[in-house]
């Protein structure tokens, strides 16, 4: 489902538990991430991070020769590479420590493979802008580079707001995006009360992308929660 652009990113895994490291590698490999660098100690992590310049670091907090927080601080002296902490420590104070030092996310063990992938994709999408590929939907084709929708013979232009809306949804394709996230994507940090405006935009987007806007199949409403963009079936 995810683009090969994101899967081509180099990920450094730092974990002292060999079995768990092996499993992480397995999960990522199977997902299609081929460029993995493995380290089992803080020292190794520091060296490999410097030599291989990864695009994302998955970092255990407790390492035999130091803490993951220290490791990140050393890397931060020359790089702002995104870091996800993977840890068994779960007290809130730890979370604050990690995030204050500039971690991008924090996963508490035990975790499901899906959760790990979800977080990795989320961070990668946020940090690395992909050259927008046209996105195929059930009744139309979204061309983000031109801000256009191709439906049948028609080519319809997207307004800036519609573009933002569809971009946010497409970055989470197949997943529900909350109305709050969508509103913030369009209007920035707003308190609330923009749901009605959002509804209006959604309606207009549907008219542009759906074959039958009153029975949407690509842009689905999840009542009370948000919206989901569904990719078209491959032919």
């Amino acid at each position: 489902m995810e683009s090969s652009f994101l899967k081509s990113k180099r990920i450094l895994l730092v974990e002292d538990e060999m079995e768990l490291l092996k499993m992480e590698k397995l999960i990522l490999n199977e997902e299609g991430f081929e460029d993995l660098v493995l380290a089992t100690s803080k020292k190794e992590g520091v060296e490999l991070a410097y030599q291989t310049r990864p695009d994302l670091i998955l970092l255990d907090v407790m390492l035999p020769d130091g803490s993951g927080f220290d490791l990140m601080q050393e890397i931060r002296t020359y790089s702002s590479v995104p870091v996800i902490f993977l840890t068994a420590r779960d007290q809130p104070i730890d979370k604050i420590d990690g995030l204050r030092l500039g971690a991008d996310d924090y996963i508490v063990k035990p975790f499901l493979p899906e959760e790990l992938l979800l977080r990795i994709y989320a961070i990668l999408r946020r940090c690395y802008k992909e050259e927008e590929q046209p996105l195929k939907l059930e009744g139309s084709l979204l061309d983000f580079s031109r801000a256009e929708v191709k439906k049948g013979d028609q080519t319809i232009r997207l307004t800036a707001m519609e573009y933002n809306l569809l971009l946010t949804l497409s970055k989470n394709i197949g997943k529900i995006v909350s109305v709050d996230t969508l509103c913030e994507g369009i209007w920035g940090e707003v308190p609330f009360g923009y749901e009605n405006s959002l509804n209006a935009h959604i309606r207009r987007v549907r008219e542009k992308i759906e074959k039958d806007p009153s029975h949407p199949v690509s842009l689905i409403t999840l009542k009370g929660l948000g919206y989901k963009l569904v990719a078209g079936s491959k032919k």
Partner: protein
Amino acid sequence: MKGLGQYVSQYLKTFLSFIFLLFLLNLILLGLFIGKVVQEEYDRATTPTKMLALSSQELEQGTLSKKVKQMLKQNSLWIMVLDENGHQIYAYDLPKGIASSYTLQEVAVFSKGYLNDYPVFVQSMDQGLLVLGYPKESFFKFTSNYLPASIIRSFPLFLLALFCLDLLILFIVYSVSKQKIVKNTQPILDGIEKLAHGKPVTTEAKGDLWPIAQQLNQASKRLVAQNEARANWIHGVSHDIRTPLSMIMGYAKRIEKREDLADPIKDEAKIIAHQSQRIKDLVDDLNIASRLEYDGQSFQMKKERIVKRVRQYVIDWMNTGIDPLYSLEVNISAEAESAELNCEARLIERALHNLLVNSMLHNKQGCTIFLDVYTENQMVILKVADDGIGFSKAQLDRFKDQASVDFYQKQHGLGLALVNQIVAVHHGKMILKNRVSSGAEILLAFPQ
């Protein structure tokens, strides 16, 4: 503290009653004693009154009888009679040094007191003045036995005033000592109260209560240390479980999804994955419960638009993929959209998580879960209901009975107990009931 004041009042009331009774007892004893002395004196044959009457009667008739003379002799009494010029006209058994003639002044002086240190008593008779003498130091005579009439008249008033003054003094002493006792014991009582609620105390007390304060502080330190040890232990165990559990969950999920394996194997992997998820929930609950129980200070309460957090939580939960046996219907009211709660959102999310998991756990055949968020009477209500089997009557009864520990331990593990704890931390309320149609309904009400 009201209890102490009452206790002290009670104590002092008893004490004052006791003093009053003691006073009364003294009064009675004194009365009895005086009564007895007076009675004895009255019973004696040789009292001045009786002797004077007897002697004067006999002397007026002639002379003293043998019997009276014997009485006088035996008791070392003596008698003389003075005529109207002060000359002795009769004497019996006079001690040495008693003159035979007296001036008017001398008579006036001794008639009220002593004659040559002999206490004397006088009585007028036909022949003159009868003087009866007693041995030295056998009587104390009051030589100035008079009181002004004003004093006698105002005496009852004086007594009343004295009584009132006494009462006032007693009341002041009572108030001061009560205040003092309360003031001295208050820090100790506060400390005990805090300790009873499991909070650490540092009690400072001076004087006699110092050792008690020290022991209280000691107990508090012990309690804190024990709580810390317990929290650390829970934290340590949960920490160590997490890494192996990650692998169990990860590999079970992989096996579950492998297409080259037979279905029974994948089904078993699914069970392992599902049960590992339960252990993960338990470990998370245990950690949060331990934090709520032993580390009440560590919350980061913040004003949050709660709907946003709830919605995101549910979305994340659905995005990781839920079993198709279950579906979720969400209803959020317009008022709830803007409602802000002073809360730790992570805890509210956890409560929601536990309610969702609870519905799924008890309805293995699948069900629809309804999540409603709305406001009512200044409260934000988070309602999770399902159309499953619902609670049994016994379960509901146990929950109503606030010995709810029993309810949680026997039926629902840590999950609902933790929800209750989280709600309590936010000063909210948790209500369990069955839906009218079918299924369970749990309502969490948080004050805005």
